[in-house]
């Protein structure tokens, strides 16, 4: 995995050549975290790359210069948390400094909740089930989840639930595994009764995380 890290700090997914972006930085950080072994990556370099991905509007793109995006923002913030560069629930603490522009990323994340209650992945795009996790988890990590409008979100997510089970991206469409999984994680963040608590930076239950780490 060390050999997959690029000079700019990003990661390539395979040795033979592929695109490099924040998704694989996140994968590397998650792997190291789960193994309890950081020799597979240079954390400082990875942090530098992540910082370059913060857009002028506070969110993070998948590569430097790219438009801020819910998935990119998740990979950025979750990675920084896993690597130990941001503390848990930073916003709830009085410490004001941070490697990233916290007030701006908070504002960006909260603005992603649309009038229909769902979360959008980018400004002026439609709400999509999975961003309730990608953006919601960022808010949870930073200590800002309490600021969202939970009732409206729950209502939106339920409109994305298929009558025979599973979740789709948008209301009224056919479900798929990906949106079903992230629909569930979103409900877990909402503390829906009978669902297990979620470890936001790994995207799995605390129970599962406990078993792995």
């Amino acid at each position, binding site marked *: 995995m060390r050999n997959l890290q690029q000079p700019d700090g990003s990661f390539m997914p395979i040795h033979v*050549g592929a695109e490099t972006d924040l998704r694989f930085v996140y994968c590397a950080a998650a792997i190291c975290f789960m193994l309890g072994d950081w020799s597979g990556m240079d954390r400082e370099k990875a942090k530098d790359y992540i910082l370059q991905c913060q857009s002028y509007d506070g969110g993070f793109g998948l590569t430097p210069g790219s*438009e801020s995006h819910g998935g990119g923002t998740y990979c950025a913030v979750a990675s920084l948390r896993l690597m130990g560069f941001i503390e848990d629930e930073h916003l709830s603490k009085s410490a004001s400094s941070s490697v990233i522009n916290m007030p701006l990323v908070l504002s960006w994340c909260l603005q992603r909740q649309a009038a229909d209650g769902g979360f959008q992945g980018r400004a002026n795009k439609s709400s999509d089930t999975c961003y309730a996790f990608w953006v919601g988890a960022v808010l949870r990590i930073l200590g800002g989840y309490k600021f969202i*409008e939970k009732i409206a979100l729950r209502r939106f997510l339920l409109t994305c639930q298929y009558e025979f089970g599973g979740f789709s991206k948008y209301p009224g469409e056919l479900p798929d595994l990906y949106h079903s999984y992230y629909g569930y994680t979103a409900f877990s963040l909402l503390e829906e009764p009978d669902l297990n608590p979620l470890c936001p930076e790994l995207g799995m239950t605390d129970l599962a995380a406990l078993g792995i780490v």
Partner: protein
Amino acid sequence: MASDLQGQLPLCKRVEWSDVIPLPQDDGPNPVVAIAYKEEFRETMDYFRAIYRADERSPRTLSLTRQVILMNPGNYTVWHFRRLILETLNVDLHEELDFAQQIASGNSKNYQLWHHRRWVAEKLGTDATLNELNFTKKILSVDAKNYHAWSHRQWVLKALGGWEDELDYCHSLLREDIYNNSAWNQRYFVITISPFLGGLKAMRDSEVTYTVEAILANPENESPWRYLRGLYKDDTEGWVNDPEIPSVCLNVLSAKSNYIFALSTLLDLLCNGFQPSQEFRDAIGALGTSDINQLDSNLAIAICSILEKVDSSRANYWRWHKSKLPSAL
């Protein structure tokens, strides 16, 4: 070049493949949830595995990789092997751009396709610049927010050039849809990095004018407000001292409609030391969101209270923000 999968003989019946022994997929002794591949797919992959194992790089294997990619454009191993064949055979890569275009028409969000396109463009160098800009423009004309297309376009500009018309291109997209956040993002990219423009500070005044116009046309549009703030990234002093900023806020507030971003921007200014004139207090009072006599003497607190009501999705946030304001402590 054969591009149609239908009406072809199975590989096992073709003379030109008779020397190859197909290599089946090894799912192990107890396959779990084994995929029910279609016969045609299974056979094609069995032949691919055989020539991949043998590392045969020839016109016939090049053609085979095309068939596999058409069947499953997500198979990054095949894309990689195709690149090895292209290099060995020293094929004219302009034809490869046509192949990529063909795959793009049904799969414009496929990562492997875009990586392949980048690889080809990198090899062709500046010869490919115009072609790549036109290609991404075509994809964006169907979906003006295709993330891969924008990413590729940014790479082309940085690696191969072609900046001259990019600001105009952003403008044309914004004329079509002023809400297109991808176009706003590209605009920021251009003004900060283009070697033909002077950089952020040099472009700032003209960009502020451009953005203010966009805001006044649609004050409920988040993109230009974020862009405006971005023009003063890392320069809070400049942000607080530019009279255009409070001016556009006041303008929007005076119109009494779609003023949420105007209020939050004004709040940001106040938190950074902006000293408002009485006009601002009057304009906020005139919104009718609360009794003018009940407007808090601290304008920032008053704004938070209003936002709690009018931006109800974020009511908890505005309440918290209010509690953290200096006078509230």
